[in-house]
């Protein structure tokens, strides 16, 4: 799900880098490389905020950043990952790293025929219900759905399933709204025809 403060254009750029990164990583094994990227973010940058600040700062020059990557990351990381960091540093795109990680995961999933599917329900779904939903979705979609469940009491009942930008709304709230629209429309016609009957000089 896109957060409102996220910048769609940054995401588009991150997508390009992730694509290239995964293409290169295919020869070595994607899981290992993605794990390395995640660990770099979690174990290195998270744990050492000063290092992160220097690496992401605009004040530090490109050459200094490159030298620092050579000194700190190169001896410990794989060559592929270090090269990727250098490329990002050279293009001054290091701040996109967290976005690149999440984009890479999504891309990797879609390449292996999997896709995230958000399932919204009014109450938390039981294991059995979730299993049912999973099997039904498996049968419906051409890809392998990965379920992400969320709850929203405002739905009242039923399920809302979202794949990418498409929403399948089968919630009770939506059905009630449909019923309301239909009743409104029906009674509007009743009222109008009743009024026409009175206003017509030759009416019954």
């Amino acid at each position, binding site marked *: 799900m*896109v*957060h*409102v403060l996220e910048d*769609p*254009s940054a*995401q*588009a750029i991150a997508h390009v880098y992730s694509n290239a990164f995964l293409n290169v990583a295919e020869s070595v094994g994607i899981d290992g490389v993605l794990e390395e990227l995640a660990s770099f973010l979690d174990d290195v940058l998270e744990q050492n905020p000063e290092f992160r600040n220097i690496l992401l700062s605009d004040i530090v020059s490109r050459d200094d950043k490159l030298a620092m990557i050579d000194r700190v990351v190169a001896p410990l990381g794989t060559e592929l990952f270090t090269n990727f960091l250098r490329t990002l540093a050279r293009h001054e795109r290091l701040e996109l790293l967290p976005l690149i990680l999440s984009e890479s995961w999504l891309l990797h999933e879609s390449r292996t025929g999997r896709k995230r599917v958000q399932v919204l329900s009014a109450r938390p779904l039981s294991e059995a219900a979730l299993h049912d939903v999973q099997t039904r979705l498996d049968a419906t979609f051409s890809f392998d759905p990965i379920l992400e469940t969320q709850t929203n009491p405002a739905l009242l009942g039923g399920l809302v399933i*979202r794949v*990418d*930008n*498409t*929403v*399948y*709304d*089968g919630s009770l709230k*939506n*059905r009630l709204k*449909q*019923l309301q629209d*239909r*009743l409104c429309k*029906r009674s*509007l*016609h009743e*009222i*109008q025809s*009743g*009024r026409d009957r*009175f206003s017509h000089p030759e009416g019954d």
Partner: protein
Amino acid sequence: MKFKADEIASVIQKEIEDFRGSIETSEVGRVLEVGDGIARCYGLSNAMASEMVEFPSGVQGMVFNLEENSVGIIILGDYLDIHEGDEVKCTGRLLSVPVGEAMIGRVVDPLGKPLDGKGPIVASERRPIETIAPGVAGRQPVKEPLQTGIKAIDSMTPIGRGQRELIIGDRKTGKTTIALDTIINQKDGNVTCIYVACGQRSANVAAVVDLLTTHGAMDYTIVIAASASDPAPLQYVAPYAGAAMAEHFMHQGQHTLVIYDDLSKQAQAYRQLSLLMRRPPGREAYPGDIFYCHSRLLERAVKLSDELGGGSMTALPIIETLEGEVSAYIPTNVISITDGQIYLEPDLFFAGVRPAINVGISVSRVGGNAQNKAMKKIAGSLRLDLAAFRELEAFAQLGTELDKATQAQLDRGYRMVEILKQPQYEPMHVADQVISIFASANGYFDDIPASQTSRAEKELLQFMKEQKSEVRDNLIKLAELNDDSVDELKSALDEFKRGFQLETKEQPTAAST
């Protein structure tokens, strides 16, 4: 009528029992930013240009900009209820308005929702607000007159059905009055009128509705109101909505008249939207497609070919100028699109010449073919006479002594100007117009003081209506002036003059006592 509670309850119960809700599939996006009538959204990857979208608060929007990573949406309603992160849904439909007989007599907003408190509008049909204008084969030349009931217009800048005639002038020069006179004059005719108020003060719109109601003109008129306090997107779509409602009647073979009051405000609303959407500004900061914005709207005014039913849409766009500046961007654009213009001048207005039409620079490029033949005959020289009079008038102001012929021409001119004056909301039948103009052009008012010309005209018309109705009826029936009818008319005028002279003789004595 009284509802029976049990009956209603059982109907509702049955409705609920039979209800089978279906799963609704829709494409969604998320609002990234919102403000000033526009929203920028992420997602909506399959959104189409001009597609309608829906916000959670029920407010509708229209896709305006399709960009690489986001979609620009104009919000057709209250944008204060929309927040960052809200889900926005594609509807797969184009923006459309309800059309048909049910709309007549109503005051609606540009989306067709009633504003007059007369209950809901049940229209069975809808029509997209943007449609392509009929092509060359679907049209025929303008040849049927649309009478405005205003002497100065019907004689010198005649308007035909299917024509686009611009009304242009400074503020407070009577632009709207001309348009309203034209609507009022369609009474007992077969023309459906649509008045689009765009960026007007709500008080003005209320006054217009009140006026049309008192003159019985709301029976065949639809008023579309997007007042100055409505968001810019609504002001922008209002003229297109008006055109769509008129098109519905036009395609059924009926005649329609649409008044866009006024297009300069609509251009400003469009400029606001375009700047907020970061489209590059051009001259006077208007976007590059402001010309297309107006040309595609006015191109929809058309006289359809007989195969398509022969219906017509006449458009009277109004443009407000600043200090008579017709060479500003929007006025020149609209002048070049329309088939002529009626130019109103504040100087004439304050000199008491009302309607304050400058006949010298007002033109109608196609209406001449549509003009009533009788009118055409007598009005042929009117414009030239008036132009000559204006020249002489300037010369006479120098105080030089004039020869008799020139003085006579001047006197005739003064009376002609008097005859072309007309009070507001009193449109005249074309036969009455012919009689008045014929009388003054043939010197029947020459010996009456200019200040009394209007009284003389009034009495003449009354005389013709009451005592010489056969002459007037003949004029209406023939719709042209042949030798016989000219003789008839002349003898009737002579008779009137004999009666009138007596009254004018009493006038000075009455004044002196």
